[in-house]
């Protein structure tokens, strides 16, 4: 059966997403096969004894061919068995379980603040197009977007945490028994860093989209009817300006998945990003694999959602699929 219209599009998009994830899993697995020589020896280093080598080889499933290893790993992945962390000697799911919540909360905070903020900035700069304010914002946002996250993070720490003002905690250590929302003061700087990282791009696209909307005939019509400029902007223009921006919003949320790696490391925030850096330092391959797949899956999922939502909210695309 060939599906048409919107369901067909969603199914095709979903299959493409699954295919991408499958290829991603091969890449992640193959990367860990690239270990020169004996992986077990490379991981254990100088502490290797014949016994520990044998045990680790069995644990990593190294006694089988690469294809069997991959099959077992994929099966585990699909059934929720992510293997055992080499450093913590605990199941990977246990090591990263609570950290997923922490990272999720950080990303959620950043998204909830940056999306409305970017929409407002985009709308206002488009409304006051080519004014001094517009030019100033354009250069300012460009500069903020250019800096790597860790540079933004450290500048914020110097400015608000340690040197110029001492109003916010420069590190965001959260006790393992607490939830991050019990420590909102510690959340401010990491969240602010991520907001600075993603807001400029979204507001830029929002501005471009709003410039087009504000020149359209229905906006002219609304103005001619004598509608207040405020209402024209916020009630009639902004909702139409958002549709083309959704894709960029999703891309930037996906970008947060990469951004948390460095930001969590800077602030010592106990999320999956910091765990990823730790796992890389410790050669903890099972954790590296699990987190790489997790982050890539999030990335693919957000892109997929963006495509579907964009189709659903833009009438022109919707009808072209029928």
């Amino acid at each position, binding site marked *: 059966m060939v599906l048409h219209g919107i369901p067909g599009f969603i199914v095709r998009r979903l299959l493409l997403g699954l295919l*991408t*994830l499958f*290829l*991603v899993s091969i*890449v*992640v697995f193959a*990367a*860990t096969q*690239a*270990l*020169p020589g004996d992986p077990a020896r490379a991981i254990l280093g100088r502490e290797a004894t014949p016994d520990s080598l044998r045990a680790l080889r069995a644990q990593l499933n190294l006694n089988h061919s690469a294809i069997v290893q991959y099959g077992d790993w994929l099966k585990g992945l699909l059934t929720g068995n992510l293997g055992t962390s080499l450093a913590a000697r605990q199941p990977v799911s246990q090591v990263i379980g609570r950290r997923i919540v922490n990272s999720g909360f950080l990303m959620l905070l950043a998204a909830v603040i940056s999306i409305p903020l970017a929409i407002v900035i985009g709308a206002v700069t488009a409304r006051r197009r080519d004014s001094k304010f517009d030019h100033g914002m354009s*250069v300012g946002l*460009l*500069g903020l*977007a*250019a*800096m*790597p*996250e*860790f*540079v933004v993070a*450290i*500048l914020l*720490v*110097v400015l608000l945490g*340690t*040197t110029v003002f001492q109003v916010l905690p*420069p590190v965001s250590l959260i006790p393992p028994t607490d939830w991050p929302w019990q420590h909102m003061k510690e959340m401010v700087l990491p969240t602010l860093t991520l907001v600075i990282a993603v807001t400029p791009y979204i507001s830029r696209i929002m501005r471009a989209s709003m410039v087009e909307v504000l020149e359209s005939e229905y906006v002219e019509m609304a103005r001619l009817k004598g509608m207040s400029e405020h209402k024209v902007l916020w009630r009639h223009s902004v909702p139409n300006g958002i549709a083309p921006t959704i894709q960029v919003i999703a891309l930037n949320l*996906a*970008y947060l*998945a*990469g*951004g948390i*790696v*460095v930001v969590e*490391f800077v602030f010592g925030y106990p999320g999956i990003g910091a765990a*990823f*850096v730790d*796992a*890389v*330092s410790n*050669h*903890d*391959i099972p954790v*590296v694999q699990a*987190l*790489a797949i997790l*982050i*890539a899956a999030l*990335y*693919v999922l957000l892109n997929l959602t963006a495509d579907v939502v964009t189709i659903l909210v833009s009438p022109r695309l919707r009808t072209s699929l029928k």
Partner: protein
Amino acid sequence: MSEAAAVPATPALVPASQPRPVVLLLHRSWRQARTKVGVGMVLLLVGIAVLGPFFAPHSPSAFVGAPFSGPMRHAWLGTDNLGRDVFSRFLWGGRSVLGLALAATAIGLVLGVTIGLFAAYSQAMGDDILMRAMDVILAFPSIVLALVAVATVGPQLWLLVLVVGITTAPRVSRVTRGSSVEIVNRDFIAAAEAIGEPRRKILLGEILPNVASPLLVEASLRLTYSVGLIAALSFLGFGVQPPAADWGLMINENRQGLTVQPWGVVAPVLAIALLTIGTSLIGDGVARASAGIERGGGDE
């Protein structure tokens, strides 16, 4: 405005007698104030990175005082976590960031342009396969891919350059393919094929010059990104290794003394910030000039 009349309304092709589009584009870009500011910032930082070591008062590995001492007569920016001169290490620390980022960007450009051109020119099957492969690379945030590679092979500089180059390639190839796909079907390509020009010559001689403008914009964007990524990897401890002097690594080493001796962190942080802002301003200036030329209109 006198030149604007000579600019064709379609994306500029390469008629033999007119100035080449890239020259025109650079000329237009230079008129943007932000391009000049960007060039100024980049020149300053490149100057520090390249010439700095000749002016360093101390060796980057010499111990000149107690760890984390504040600024003093013979160490203007104080000392670092081991008691070495921050100012000298700052002057030495730009070369690696700049060199590695340039190398990675160059690899990414060569790979991306090659793949993009082949995809556009081969169309159908080849196009699909190449672009899907690029999608897979794009399914990872660059830093995650780099860290997976480091986790297996270890912190090797050639590896970082290669991985950053590989993550740069898909974006470049998309831009190249996007702007060359329509040119591939133009008559002058068919004409070149008809007179039996070799494929390499068609790709590099006929198609590439026509996509140079969007590539220039993309290249500056990618360089900004590579500088950030390379510096971030050194900052995480997976890039340039101690005892080398490197801006990213310096930030990591001196972070613990931030409250008593901020200069060891602030100097390299400001350098990376200015460098990335500078390259990004240049890119934006070129992009604006390019958009202006395509509209066939005025300078803005």
